[in-house]
């Protein structure tokens, strides 16, 4: 509470700002009363259950996920929320939890003689491949990169090639000697999956990929990466060893010399047909299928005259409840001494899950012009699987909900600092700033509005369907994706204030006569790369919640290049190599352009003082 000034001598009493005065007491108080539990108590209860070791880190498709889903179903039932599906709250979806090469093989026929190659160190399926056997002639297509015209940079490995019904051989990564902007642009379109899609679109039968002698991991067969997509990419695709690729090229050409020809990224260096050899490629890939479960409920519209059933518009409010299990999936940031511990995910995202439950409690007796759909997603950590499965069905005849007018997401909302709350994807509707202005008036967050709707959380699935989205977020922290993301570190009073503003925003969406309009936002970066295209590993953990000029680090990964360079949480990177850094986009752009094992000058600000150091990026595996 702020101190009140002394009364003035004037006869009219000095009034209070009624509304503004309310929030100072009501919202932040978490003191228990004898009668009913406070909002803070209820939130703490949810988070402590969901983030307990007994939930085993709530990995999608595991027993821990099922237990958490049961808890949430029970909560929805107690709140009077109806199941969205006739058979209950749980809504299963299938996904690929792993894939295995069960014996891919390649037969090369030269001068009427067959040579056979098998074994994971020689030829192995790419994880997104279709299974099947194809045979045909070979075309070497350089790095197999096609930069879209829109990128303002001309590069097309296929410009002079006809690959219709052929098998394409391409190099992994992107031209090794490319510099600066060209390097960054090429990196963006060099993901293996994107290369496979490009080859398929040009009519190729199959894709072989080789890691060239002049690249990191030279000559090695590519590891099977974790790919949760339920279907293949529509093309047979395999990785071959450098030795096998050399064999296919024939004795007249050295793979290293061929690669060198492409490595300066000269767009006029053409690929070529490999004469005198035909191959038969068999890819055997088994995908292990698992099921995850969303938890879905609905509070139907209840205002007089509201449409019912599938005719009713709906507002979806949601949060993912899955997490990383024991962190085996590759997304864990556990330190060396923390491996195999349960990743409790109290902030990520028991906090958002609890917030949604309490928002629903606050809204259940409200008049609603629209259905309020309550969604707890699974599979978020594996790639927005649950939310995507739901969104994919929205256009179906038997879709479980009517037209969705907006989606409001809560992902990591339990660690607010300094009264700051980030609201992301605000650019997805022109209506958001006004709605947030009104909703926040009495709650008093120091709101940080961020336009970009292309977010790595469930709201992105709705954004793809051109639905206005919003994501609430209190910021990354040093326990992010570590086993130490625990319930006692959540600020339940502040989480209660997230509920307060969320409830007001959703109330506005349910009550306004006009639905809000979707506003398209151009993506800041072309898509087409994937993890494989960003090879440089720096070990920095950006703080995404704080708007500063530069890249604020919330921490560094132990033993990583950033830590070795002396960087630490709180530092603000302002220059990386030749690139000045004003925001995270500049930083990812700068990362595209660096070379592995080549030191980079980094300028940063610590405690108001500008400093510099040298950081040596390493290769990602």
């Amino acid at each position, binding site marked *: 509470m*702020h*101190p*009140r*000034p*002394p009364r*003035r*001598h*004037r006869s009219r009493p*000095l*009034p*209070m*700002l*009624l*509304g*503004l005065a309310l929030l100072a007491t009501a919202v932040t108080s978490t003191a228990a009363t004898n009668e009913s539990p406070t909002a803070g108590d209820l939130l703490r209860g949810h988070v402590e259950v969901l983030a307990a070791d007994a939930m085993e880190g709530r990995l999608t498709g595991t027993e821990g996920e099922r237990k958490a889903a049961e808890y949430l179903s029970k909560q929805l039932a107690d709140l009077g929320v109806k199941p969205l599906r006739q058979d209950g709250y749980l809504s299963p979806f299938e996904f690929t939890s792993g894939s295995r090469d069960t014996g891919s093989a390649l037969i090369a026929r030269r001068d009427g003689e067959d040579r056979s190659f098998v074994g994971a160190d020689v030829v192995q399926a790419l994880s997104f491949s279709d299974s099947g056997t194809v045979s045909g002639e070979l075309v070497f297509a350089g790095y197999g990169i096609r930069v879209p015209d829109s990128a303002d940079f001309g590069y097309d490995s296929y410009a002079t090639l006809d690959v219709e019904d052929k098998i394409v051989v391409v190099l992994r990564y992107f031209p090794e000697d490319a510099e600066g902007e060209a390097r960054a642009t090429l990196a963006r379109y060099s993901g293996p999956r994107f290369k496979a899609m490009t080859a398929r679109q040009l009519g190729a039968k199959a894709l072989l990929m080789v890691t060239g002698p002049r690249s990191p991991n030279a000559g090695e067969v590519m590891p099977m990466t974790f790919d949760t997509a339920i279907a293949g990419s529509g093309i047979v695709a395999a990785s071959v060893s450098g030795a096998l690729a050399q064999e296919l090229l024939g004795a007249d050409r050295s793979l290293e010399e061929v690669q060198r020809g492409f490595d300066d990224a000269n767009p006029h260096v053409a690929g070529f047909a490999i004469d005198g050899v035909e191959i038969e490629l068999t890819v055997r890939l088994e995908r292990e299928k698992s099921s995850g479960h969303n938890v879905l409920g609905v509070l139907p519209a209840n205002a007089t005259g509201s449409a019912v059933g599938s005719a009713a518009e709906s507002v979806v409010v949601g949060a993912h409840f899955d997490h990383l299990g024991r962190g085996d999936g590759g*997304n864990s940031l556990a330190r060396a001494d923390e491996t195999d511990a349960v990743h409790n995910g109290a902030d990520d995202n028991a906090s958002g899950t609890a917030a949604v439950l309490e928002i629903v409690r606050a809204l259940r007796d409200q008049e609603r012009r629209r259905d309020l759909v309550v969604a707890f997603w699974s599979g*978020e*950590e594996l*790639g927005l699987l649950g939310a995507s499965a739901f969104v994919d069905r929205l256009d179906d005849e038997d879709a479980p909900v009517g037209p969705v007018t907006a989606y409001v997401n809560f*992902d990591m909302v339990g660690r607010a600092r300094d*009264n700051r709350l980030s609201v*992301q994807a605000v*650019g997805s509707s022109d209506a958001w*700033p*006004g709605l*947030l*202005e*009104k909703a*926040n*008036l*009495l709650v*008093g967050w*120091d*709101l940080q*509005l*961020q*336009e*970009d709707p292309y977010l*790595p*959380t469930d709201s992105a699935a709705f954004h793809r369907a051109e639905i206005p989205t919003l994501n609430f*977020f209190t910021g*990354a922290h040093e326990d*992010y994706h570590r086993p130490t993301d625990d319930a006692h570190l959540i600020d339940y009073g502040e989480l209660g204030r997230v509920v307060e503003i969320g409830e007001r925003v959703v109330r506005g969406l349910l009550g306004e006569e006009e639905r809000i309009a979707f506003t398209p936002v151009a993506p*800041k970066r072309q898509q087409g790369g994937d993890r494989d295209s960003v090879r440089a590993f720096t070990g920095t953990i950006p703080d995404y*919640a704080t*708007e500063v*000029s*530069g890249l604020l680090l919330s921490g560094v990964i132990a033993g990583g290049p950033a830590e070795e360079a002396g960087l630490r949480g709180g530092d*603000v990177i*302002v220059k990386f190599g030749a690139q*000045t850094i*004003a*925001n995270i*986009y500049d930083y*990812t752009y700068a990362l595209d352009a660096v070379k592995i094992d080549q030191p980079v000058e980094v300028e940063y*600000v610590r*405690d*108001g*003082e*500008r400093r510099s150091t040298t950081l040596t990026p390493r290769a990602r595996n």
Partner: protein
Amino acid sequence: MNTRRRSAHAPLTPSHGPSHGSRAPFGRVALRCASTPAALTMLAAVAALVLLPFPSDGRGLAAPAGTTAGEGEADDAEDRFLSRTRRLIFEGRRSGEGYFSPDGSQMVFQAEREEGNPFYQIYRLDLESGETRRISPGIGKTTCSFIQPGTGNVLYASTHHDPASEELQRAELEFRASGEERRYSWDYDPEFDIWVADPESGEQRRLTDARGYDAEGAYSPDGEWIVFSSMRDAYGRDLSPEEQRQLEVDPSFFAELYIMRADGSDQRRLTHTDGYDGGPFFFPDGERIVWRRFDTSGLIADVWSMKPDGSDQKQITDFGAMSWAPYVHPSGEYILFASNKHGFSNFEVFIVDVEGVKEPVRVTTTDGFDGLPVPTPDGGRLVRTSNRHQGEGAHLYIAEWNHQAAREALAAAPPRRAAR
């Protein structure tokens, strides 16, 4: 959350129009500082941090050698008087100049928040329901609103009666679309007159019709009087060649303070000094008027006070800088104002005792523009206009105000020093 989380930075766009305290140099300054590239802003911020914002003697001296104030420390310094600073208005391109009804339940402000008009319009925010509605007609330029005690009517300056208004809106929108940057942000449109709106009936009544900018009006605490600024002196008589040149270069040179009854009758001139007199407000007890007076160069301004009949004019500040936008705290003990003492484009909020016998005390320490400080009627919060969020026009912010700390800091302040 998925590991690839990213954040967004809004595009940079310029800001700012007129205000109760506005004039050309300020407009230019604010425009430039809002569009500074982020990296430069950061460098400036770092450079600014070597200034310890609250030295014990209140004189804004540089920090002793060896001390560097980190960002956190600068915030702590501002936290002495202000806490929980947060943005109040998000809708629209820019907003500013919030003023409260006497019971604190409503705030009027100017904002650009509807399509089709690139100039400010006047809005009223209900602080209990959060509803915002437009009070002015929506056409033309408006600025400087104030709520009448007793009636809830809203006074503001407007050009909507000018038949050219809509054409000017179109021209401004086209100019914006061209992508050019305006070097001069405010033209003191001589069509500006003072209007009053009854928000309940929607009735709009014109109170002044003199040729020349009439604006920057504020009611007396009893709601009976309006003090305002006018450039009518430049239009109602024959000007000397020197004055004519002055009018073409900068009409604000002719701005003087006037007072009239709430119905527009009995208009009387209060000041007769060359240079821009404007931004007047009554003291909470109605006994005096505070305003800011520019010198004839238009670069230096100071806070002054006088009786409502124009007598007993007293200079309160003397920084030799641009000190403007004064407003008296509801306690009647001190005046809040903004000054660029610490850098031409770095306006900060200061407080000074009503008599001006002590050296003013700096309140805000955030780089960029902080100005137009207005306390809530209970004295417990402060609304101001700021571009601290970077990358957009300025907007209204609110924060908790520590009145006790303000009193203590003023009690400890040394006697005022003369700048010249």
